[in-house]
């Protein structure tokens, strides 16, 4: 059974029909990637799932068969759907530690939080070194680590990652993708990964969807997609 299931998702920005009926699902323990060019509707999809955007009646978003549709964002977080937004959006005027504390805002279990903090510091030792520093003074790579660490503090059932590799040097991109894979393998975290870096995303994902101007145009096994001539031509440079 799908952990996260999206049916017929539409989003309108005023007159602009940005998503025109998206269907996708993510099973327990999977990494699924949603790839597509700039302006295709990837961010819009994640923002609709996490309750930041309104959706019309006919759209359905379900977590473990319970409706998330039209819940407000802070209630979606309480259900365990945690979204690392595009551009990281760490709280620049708070310390690294306070950002991590914010990540656990919706959480009640103190004991689990301490364990997660240890795990995050193990995963990103840099964050531990800089825990007292203001987040705004971190480098781009460190901010991405912080954004992911902050999301992990919320103990996600499903982690939504919006272009975690954006604007990072190739070495760092490699490190971030390794971390995503490790999270999934070690902790069994279910991940929906949005990327423009299609090749790398398809390498760590089990399945993928290709989105173009608000439609899913292709979907399937990640390995099959990465050798599909249409995908190669459009996203992988031929």
């Amino acid at each position: 059974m799908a952990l996260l299931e999206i049916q017929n998702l539409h989003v309108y920005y005023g007159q602009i029909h940005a998503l025109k009926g998206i269907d996708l699902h993510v099973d327990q323990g999977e990494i699924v990637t949603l790839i597509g060019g700039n302006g295709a509707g990837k961010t819009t999809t994640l923002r609709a799932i996490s309750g930041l955007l309104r959706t019309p009646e006919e759209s359905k978003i379900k977590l473990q068969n319970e409706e998330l549709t039209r819940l407000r964002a802070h209630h979606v977080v309480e259900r365990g759907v945690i979204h690392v937004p595009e551009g990281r959006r760490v709280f620049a005027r708070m310390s690294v530690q306070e950002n991590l504390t914010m990540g656990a805002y919706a959480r009640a279990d103190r004991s689990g939080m301490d364990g997660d903090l240890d795990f995050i510091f193990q995963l990103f030792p840099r964050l531990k070194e800089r825990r007292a520093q203001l987040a705004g003074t971190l480098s781009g790579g460190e901010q991405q680590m912080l954004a992911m660490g902050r999301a992990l503090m919320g103990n996600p059932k499903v982690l939504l990652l919006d272009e975690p590799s954006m604007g990072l040097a190739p070495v760092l991109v490699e490190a971030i993708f390794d971390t995503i894979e490790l999270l999934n393998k070690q902790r069994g975290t279910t991940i929906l990964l949005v990327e423009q870096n299609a090749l790398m995303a398809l390498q760590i994902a089990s399945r993928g969807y290709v989105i173009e101007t608000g439609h899913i145009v292709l979907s399937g096994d990640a390995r099959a997609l990465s050798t599909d001539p249409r995908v190669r031509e459009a996203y992988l440079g031929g």
Partner: protein
Amino acid sequence: MLARLRREFDIADLVLYLIGLGLLIAIVYGSIVTLSSGKYTTAQWLNFIIFGLAQGGIYALIALGYTMVYGILGMINFAHGEFFMMGSFGAFFTTAALAEMGFLERNPILSILLMMVVAMTVSAAVAVLSERIAYRPLRRAPRLVPLITAIGVSYFLQYTARGLFGSSVKAFPNIPALSGAVQLGPIAIQRSQIAVFVVVALMLLSLYFIVQRTKVGRAIRSVAEDKDAAALMGVDVDRTIALTFLIGGIMAGAAGVMYGIVFRQASFWMGFVPGLKAFTAAVLGGIGNIAGAVLGGISLGVVESIGPSLFLDGLGIAAPHQLKDAIAFTVLVLILIFRPTGLLGERLSKRA
């Protein structure tokens, strides 16, 4: 074309700088003349400063509401002075009733606490209702819309108070425990001023603790920084904004009591000038910055209190104390010319 535009801006800047410089020279010159004339004694100066600190503490409490709402919504809530006024009426009716019962004389501390509770509740309720009814529906409207609405709310509250309580000035009953002065060496400090210092210090410390050290405070700071990111952490953004109004209202209510204790009056228009002064204080400190509001409030209170004697006496201006409001707004003008971000602030020009 572009070059000409650029030159015109330079000329405008130059004129502003010359005005600012002229004012600064007048201030320095006036101060030197006053000080060398020896017209005021040290004890008198100290009294001016103490009065200024008390007045400034009241400005600081009100300024916090302006600055916190600006920090979280990017909006200047011009009705905030009226939240203060409503609280002051709450305090007035409470003391009047307590004085009538004789409770005020028997139990002054409890009476003052009761005044505080009533005033803070009234101001906070008015603040939260204003947010809910007038501002929240406009959350996505262009910036000018909530600003004009705030002016509307301000008038609405003023005339509501006038309708309910009449247009006369209400005189607070005398609180025996707070009348008279305590002699501290050469200076006499009014008991009412001591009460103001104690209450302001407690309010500011509690606020600091709440904002910096508690979950609620982190929620407020996160919403002020990035509403969507805060929502993605599980913060209820609407509730947090309402809470910010609530805290601003509580501070304004406390200020209403302090004003009542020091000046012993309440009227439907009393929110206007202190509101404008507190707004000046918030801009002076750097609007959006909580520490700035406190620093701005206290500096404004002190400058306004010593300014007339210090700057204006030396310039040979008669009855300088009539001009203390002019001094406050001159400070605002100077700040906007020389340091538009305020003493501790960042990027006012970008967001305002």
